[in-house]
């Protein structure tokens, strides 16, 4: 556990541009963050060496405890600048451990997503890690903890990360957020450029962007691209009740069925927005 605190970043800090550690420092109450299994422990990926790739001492995720608006929370932040925030064995296990603690303590948890999904160089380990994270997250929610997801980083929230995000109690997104199971490049390489041109930035944003997700109900709170705005939205999310029960899922089923029936025939976002 480390308690050496960097200076608090300004409230105007761009969430999109910031690092994982800057985001945490700007999000939580001043000097309240205590990291677990920090970089000084040097718990690095055991698999990247086989690809002659560099490792990072925190494996691209920062986890620990903090206070947010005077309330104790657990917190995790993915570092999109290390291998696209991808989820490998160690990265995933740190988040799993945090969420298991959240379930045991019934402690609200905030996850700052910034990930392309499973780290393909350790694909099997990452895939099962995502499954373990989902189970720990759902167990924490069933125990009564809230899990709030914040999305607006450079790497977006893709692949397995997008499934973790959609299991959260609530999601905060900015306009810069992108959420998808298959990212633009994966769709293009799988179905061709006619299906999805991954270089078409406008298409990417209107298909997977934060505004679209918010409009169709895939995210609950909209934030500006500043640390202050994300902090305010996270505090609002933490004030809402969020029980996960069979009845919750029944309502979710109706919501998603209704969306599919109403919007399933559209192939581009503007038609959907017009229909909403």
């Amino acid at each position, binding site marked *: 556990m480390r308690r050496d605190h960097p200076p608090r970043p300004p409230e105007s800090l761009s969430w999109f541009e910031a690092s994982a550690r800057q985001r945490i420092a700007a999000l939580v109450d001043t000097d309240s963050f205590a990291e677990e*299994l920090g970089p000084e422990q040097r718990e690095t990926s055991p698999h990247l060496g086989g690809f002659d790739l560099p490792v990072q001492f925190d494996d691209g995720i920062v986890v620990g405890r903090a206070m947010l608006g005077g309330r104790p929370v657990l917190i995790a932040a993915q570092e999109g600048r290390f291998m696209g925030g991808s989820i490998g064995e160690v990265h995933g296990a740190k988040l799993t*451990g945090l969420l298991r*603690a959240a379930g045991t303590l019934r402690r609200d948890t905030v996850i700052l997503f910034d990930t392309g999904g499973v780290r393909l160089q350790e*694909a099997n380990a990452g895939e099962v890690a995502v499954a373990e994270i989902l189970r720990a997250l759902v167990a924490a929610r069933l125990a009564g903890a809230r899990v709030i997801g914040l999305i607006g980083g450079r790497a977006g929230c893709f*692949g397995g990360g997008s499934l973790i995000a959609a299991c959260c109690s609530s999601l905060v997104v900015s306009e810069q957020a992108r959420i998808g199971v298959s990212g633009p490049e*994966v769709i293009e390489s799988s179905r061709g450029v006619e299906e999805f041109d991954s270089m078409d930035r406008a298409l990417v944003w209107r298909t997977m962007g934060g505004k679209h997700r918010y409009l169709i109900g895939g995210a609950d709170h909209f934030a500006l691209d500043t640390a202050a705005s994300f902090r305010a939205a996270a505090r609002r999310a933490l004030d809402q009740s969020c029980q996960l029960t069979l009845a919750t899922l029944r309502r*979710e089923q109706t919501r998603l069925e209704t969306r*599919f029936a109403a919007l399933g025939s559209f192939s581009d976002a503007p038609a959907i927005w017009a229909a909403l």
Partner: protein
Amino acid sequence: MTLAEILQSLLFADGGVPLGSGLITGLGHLGVGEPARGDGRIHVLGVVDGVELGVEQAIALSGRVLHIAEIADDAPILMLLDCRAQCKTRRDELLGLNEYLAHLAKALMVADQEGHRTAGLLYGGAAAGALIATGLATSVLVALPGATPEVMDFASMARVTKLSLDALQQKTDSMVAFAPGLGNLVRIGGVCTILRPEQPLASQIAAVLLCTGGGDERDRLGLQRQGRPKAASIARRVAADIVNG
């Protein structure tokens, strides 16, 4: 084993009822006198015929799972899997496929919480988000020999990792954490065990279901089988330090 053989071994007279494109549902039986709790009945769902898991399939499956969860029996749920990855289309992403897949995973986990133990049986393909939302969201995932799980097809992997196809192929022999295939998913701890097709399937599934109900054992399996050297200890250390701190 083929789907027909699997269904026959679960005492399906009707081959299962189609639930939609690539989906089946029905009520099977694990056999009288087997070591099963309850009366031996089992709810069977299938994502079959190599279908891709899109919004349409996911919402039909989750609806069925929730319907079962609301039934006041304690019959377990078995999910049969021979599918591809999630449906990689612009339309499915526009509609928020991640929400549909996550909802299916949550439905399976909450059904388990409601007393319906869950298991997955992988007998064909399954990949990426489709595997996470189905088999890996059940309490225990088992497989039959010949199953072909993968995380992503090599062409997409090459594009995302910016490695050549040749370079990726060379890694498949040596790297458990990376290379596709059933054996590696077993060693990682994602698949609990491989069933014996020459033995009655129903009693093997009944036995597997009896082992569920504890915590998530997959990281410990991955450690024992030398597929994931660090996951179990890292998760335990983080959780223990926070809970005890």
